[in-house]
């Protein structure tokens, strides 16, 4: 065979591989992307109502109806039983505006039914009910948490750290899903962006809750014995970072620095670890990658920088590092779950109108982020934060709570108040992230809210 014939053969193989490659891409597209693409609110198909099918129910983990449709004077009305408490999670569904949230993501399932049943009903000219989507959310916990955040701006995300089930997902300010169409212009012009689902799409500076990751990096790089003398501030090339109240902590160890959230210590620790190590640790914890779940969230970011000033800020969760509340909850869950991340998910089952199971979504197998022994050390330190540190206001009598507070400086006024944590520390049932925008210090605002939500969850949630 001469050269030219060989090359012709090469061209042939090029075509075969490319064509089959695109075919495979189409399949991948269908199985992994099409759901998220077709639920985009710019897809005009979402506005076409299927006239023969009454949109199915959305229920909570115990079967409580959260959204349902019924025929009223020949028009189908969508009724949201708990209105504002679920506005962002469930979203809305309307002819003129399309839909968002679960209404958009599971539009296909809600507006279709068993093939044979549909044909039967079409032949008879009757309307039948679409499939039911069952969520992992708990109605009681959701409404309770929603009340706690009422009138504030912020988000709460509560997860089961072992399974990844999302128990509550709150974003405030909210809106009334029943009359979105009427209020549309007000809603989109509102400066507080009530339509934004802050729990998954809000990105915030994490502040001191990021110290969990700096701490994890220190443990992974054998710096657990690192100590400094803290005098209340630290100077990096002319830029000064202060501790809260400008008070020095004196000679301070890793455990104590974490418990008291000492900025000087963590800045100096971050600088010792270096840009690469910090960036890699953040990436391990899914910064710049995003946490994969059934609802897509914005990707938290940790920008790789070269200078010390940026690194100093990043080490304490300021500057070029941003996080979504759901990601913050996932970080708490990783520590709670012995260093293993189980992707959060919100839809547990799809059933047809006779409550026969069509599809069930089980927890994915987790991904190991850090070793169990390292997670154990972080956990103990997080318990200390609640026992004797900045998070005392999250204490629950008779239950060992673990947590970390954050007070994130930002250009919009008072600092954002953060809390992440889980309980009970020996056998975690709930992991949580709370953010109150411009709320003030984490220990005084977010921690008490988290405390109440965790208490409620421990009493209330059945496995």
């Amino acid at each position, binding site marked *: 065979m001469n050269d030219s014939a060989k090359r012709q053969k090469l061209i042939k193989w090029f075509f075969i591989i490319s064509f089959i490659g695109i075919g495979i891409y189409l399949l991948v597209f*269908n199985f992994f*992307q*099409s759901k998220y*693409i077709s639920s985009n609110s710019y897809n005009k198909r979402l506005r076409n109502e299927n006239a023969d099918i009454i949109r199915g129910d959305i229920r909570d983990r115990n079967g409580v109806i959260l959204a349902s449709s019924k025929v009223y004077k020949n028009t189908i009305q969508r009724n949201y039983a708990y209105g504002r408490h679920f506005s962002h999670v469930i979203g809305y569904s309307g002819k003129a505006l399309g839909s968002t949230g679960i209404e958009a993501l599971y539009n296909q399932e809600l507006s279709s039914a068993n093939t044979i049943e549909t044909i039967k009903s079409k032949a008879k000219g009757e309307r039948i009910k679409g499939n039911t989507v069952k969520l992992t959310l708990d109605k009681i916990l959701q409404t309770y948490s929603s009340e706690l955040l009422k009138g504030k701006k912020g988000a709460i995300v509560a997860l089961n750290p072992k399974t990844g089930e999302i128990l509550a997902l709150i974003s405030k300010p909210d809106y009334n899903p029943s009359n979105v169409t009427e209020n549309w212009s007000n809603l989109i012009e509102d400066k507080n962006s009530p339509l934004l689902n802050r729990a998954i799409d809000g990105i915030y500076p994490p502040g001191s809750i990021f110290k969990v990751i700096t701490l994890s990096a220190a443990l992974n790089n054998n710096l657990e014995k690192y100590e400094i003398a803290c005098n209340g501030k630290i100077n990096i090339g002319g830029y000064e970072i202060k501790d809260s109240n400008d008070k020095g902590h004196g000679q301070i160890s890793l455990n104590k620095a974490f418990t008291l959230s000492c900025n000087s210590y963590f800045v100096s620790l971050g600088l010792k670890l270096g840009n690469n190590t910090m960036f890699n640790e953040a990436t391990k914890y899914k910064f710049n990658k995003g946490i994969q779940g059934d609802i897509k969230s914005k990707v938290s970011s940790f920008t790789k920088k070269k200078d010390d000033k940026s690194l100093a800020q990043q080490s304490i969760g300021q500057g070029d590092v941003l996080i979504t509340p759901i990601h913050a909850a996932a970080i708490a869950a990783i520590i709670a779950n012995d260093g293993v991340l189980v992707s959060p998910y919100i839809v547990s089952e799809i059933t047809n109108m006779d409550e026969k199971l069509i599809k069930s979504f089980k927890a994915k197998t987790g991904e190991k982020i850090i070793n169990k022994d390292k997670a154990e050390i972080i956990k103990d330190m997080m318990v200390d934060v609640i026992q004797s540190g900045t998070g005392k206001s999250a204490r629950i009598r008779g239950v060992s709570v673990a947590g970390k507070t954050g007070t994130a400086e930002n250009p919009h006024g008072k600092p954002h108040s953060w809390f992440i944590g889980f309980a009970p520390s020996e056998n975690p049932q709930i992991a949580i992230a709370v953010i109150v925008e411009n709320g003030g210090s984490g220990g005084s605002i977010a921690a008490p809210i988290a405390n109440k939500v965790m208490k409620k969850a421990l009493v209330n949630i059945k496995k």
Partner: protein
Amino acid sequence: MFDILSWFYRYIFIFLLASFLLTSISIYFYEKKQFQPFLSVIIVVTAASSFALLSLFEEVIGYKAVYIGSIFCFQYIITRILFIKVLKIKDLLLFDTVNMLLAIGLVILYRLSPDYAIKQTMFALLGDITYFLVFYILRKIDLQKDYSKQLGIFILLTLIITQLWGVQISGSKNWIEIFSYRFQPSEFLKIIFIIYISTLFRKGINNNVLWRSSASIVIAAAFFALQRDLGSALIFFIVYLILLFVMDEQIYPTIISTTAAVVMAIISFHAFAHIKSRVEAWLNPWKYVSGKAYQVTQSLFAIASGGLLGTGLNLGSPKFIPAVHTDFIFSAICEETGIISGIIILLLLCMVTLIGLNFSTNCKDTNNKLICLGLSSMTGFQTLIIISGVLNIIPITGITLPFISYGGSSLLSQIMNIGILYFINTSEIGERNE
């Protein structure tokens, strides 16, 4: 009632497509020539059943659909018989596959707008005549002679005429109007260009040949850039590179040309605003979802909404995509007849390309070999480029999907392409037998 029928028909349609694919694979790879008649049966059944379904869409029976379906089947059978009897062609797999694609195209076009389907049927009838014209003309011409000068001048003149008197339609000034009939010279130039380059290359590649050919491609590309016909420029370049790659004894001319092409692509990205905006739309489709990426995101919505089986003919909303009947017809197919159908169509077009490449390897004569190689690579690349475009794997370029997209010039030039492939193949076989 139509809903239910159309819903069930999805399965039948996919079954027909899949059996066509399997039969043609068994013929192509396992030489099961006895299966050939099955292909004809499947084509006729597909066209007849699809148009029967479409005719039921309105309350009154749509006679247009019935006519188009019958005319298609009729022209297919007649042309096939003439192929065997008059042109003495035995290997009809290529012809059958092309007609299957044509049938699918007509069905989708009718669904999008019956007027497109009516015109496309007329182009198909013209196409049948084209096959025989190609054979008639090529028999008169001695392909062994060196026509490169004449061809080169012809290409240059056509490009100049298009540039001077061209009509601008949907952003590209690559149309010519004669007696109120509009056509795209670039579609036919592609074929002539392949013959031209093949004639240049047939005696091997030396510096002189390399200079002449690369000057031609650069000039042609420059004209296409002026006419905003990005797709044609790309196809010309790729086909040129393929021919060069096969003929090139040292490898460096191909590498240099490829580098030059990449450099030109980068320059045009910076020089032309419309290219830049397409690249931006490709990189960030969701950012520009209501602006410059509108078309491609609508295409993704369509494909995503159809799923594996599709919504059923007339039950989806492919018309949300601008230019769905030409460049974006693949998205409409995926939405209404399913991604499985899309994949089968992709594989059928792959088959068309491979058969052409086989014709090329069977050629003794270098000129013929190169022409076949160029023509079939063109079909293959056109498919790859436009399908990757509508899937947003690469930026979108205005190229039609061979045999399926609406358009007289593109369909006729593609049929001409097949006609030339068949002519060369039969004449090569004839020579061997003598």
